[in-house]
């Protein structure tokens, strides 16, 4: 594996495609209890991320990719999600600072953990408030277990993605306390949180890209 700056950029590029593919679904989820724009806001953000990748210098580090994603969210998105993802990507940049590659499970645990902490600090939500945190947190816990078990990176990320998506589904049962849906209280029960779902899509997308890379490498070796 050689997850260098270029590879991280390719991964984020695919993340952007996957998010845009799910735009309508994310809007639908947000529309049930919120204002129906989450898929649009994420698509605007991810399109800006893709444009910013094109402007990167010829050679760059993984942290440069995260930094420019943060800047893209900062300038183009707004809404709740804009500052939260700006902070998350900026934290990812800091967590990856100076690293040439992100080949280890622990690298990604650190990055995810930094993103999570940034979102939690800026947004001030608690676990159980029916937000991004509620699918992101279990995913990080599964990464922590994978690190302890010395799991292979692709497996660890795949498991984290699966846990995130299952946890996103589980937000249906939660009573939201933060964000626009919060004032609905009990009325929001039964609706899956949009932000928890989009971060799960992102984590799954990253996992799939890394798994593909691994496959290519394995294929090389067995040739």
């Amino acid at each position: 594996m050689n997850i260098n700056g270029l590879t991280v950029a390719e991964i984020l590029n695919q993340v952007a495609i996957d998010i845009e593919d799910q735009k309508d679904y994310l809007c639908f989820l947000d529309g049930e209890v919120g204002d129906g724009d989450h898929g649009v806001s994420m698509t605007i953000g991810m399109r800006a991320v893709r444009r910013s990748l094109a402007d990167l210098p010829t050679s760059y580090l993984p942290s440069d990719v995260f930094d420019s994603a943060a800047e893209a969210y900062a300038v183009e998105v707004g809404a709740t999600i804009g500052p939260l993802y700006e902070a998350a990507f900026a934290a990812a940049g800091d967590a990856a600072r100076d690293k040439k590659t992100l080949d280890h499970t622990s690298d990604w645990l650190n990055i995810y953990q930094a993103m999570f902490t940034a979102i939690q600090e800026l947004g001030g939500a608690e676990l159980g408030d029916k937000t991004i945190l509620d699918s992101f947190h279990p995913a990080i816990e599964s990464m922590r277990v994978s690190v302890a078990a010395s799991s292979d990176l692709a497996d660890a990320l795949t498991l984290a993605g699966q846990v995130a998506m299952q946890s996103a589904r589980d937000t249906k049962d939660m009573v939201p306390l933060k964000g626009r849906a919060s004032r609905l209280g009990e009325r929001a029960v039964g609706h899956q949180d949009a932000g928890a779902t989009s971060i799960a899509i992102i984590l799954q997308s990253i996992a799939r890209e890394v798994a593909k890379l691994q496959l290519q490498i394995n294929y090389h070796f067995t040739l």
Partner: protein
Amino acid sequence: MKKLINDPFDMVEEMVDGFISANDDIVKRVGRRSIARLESPIPNKVAIVVGGGSGHLPAFAGYVGSGMADAAAFGNVFASPPAKPIIEAALACDSGAGVVFIYGNYAGDCLNFDRAQDTCREMGHDVESVVMNDDVASAPSSDALRRRGIGGMLWVYQIAGAKAETLASLGEVVEIAHRANENTRTIGVGLSSCIVPANGKATFALADDEIEVGLGIHGEPGMKRQKVAPVDEIIEEMFAQLMADLDYRNQRVALSINGLGGTPAEELFVVYRKVKALCDAHGITIAHKAVGEFVTALEMAGASISITRLDLEMEILLNAPVNTCMFKKLQRESSSA
């Protein structure tokens, strides 16, 4: 979805271009998504900066001009603007007398305006914020700080704007903006959904005979869904909610009937007629009034009622002329009536 747009992802950009061009006698562009009054910064005047998601015109940019706001930042549809255009707006209009951000209480707006305020302060600007929370349907009165800001902004902006035109101090403008907000309550009713352009589908669905009382200006669910009824009944119920929240009896008030976008003006006057009758029955004197579209939710059908309880200072300030991009008022001559 049928809309008079090109690529939905270009809509806000093109709208901002058209807006600035159509209002070039009042505003100038001070950033990609920010505008300010032509005369800004105005020496010694506290500047008022407003902003929020697009899709609510005349809110927010439509209120830039004399007597209301000095500058505004445009967000994407139903999305708070990022900090950057808010900062650009603030810097363009701060004469040194200070700036007040007045915006609605939504998570996104709070996040972004707070960050803009921090940055502006670091740059040495005196910036205060007033967060409007007039929507009684969005939280119980015991939890009023979680309430959203909606149609009441028409009165809060005018009162604060008129005060700022008198070259009052930053503290004074902030104080009266707070006072106006605290004395304002709004309740809305939605009859149909709107369509976020880049989504392309109705945000929510209401059955053919259903309405939603307390619906937010983005289609956020309200207090309850009910069967459609004669408007007089609906208004009685909404009015009762307002009265239960703030005692308007025997007070002088500013009253606005706001169309959410898809409701014809004719219906708004039918609503006014009933609200006026209810005011009369409760000894409420309507000192200022406005019927029209002030805070919309794209093409959503529905209306909201905003009432501000006035003291003498607010009532007099509301006589001042207003000349903004989308709301104009000639000087009220001191009436003999």
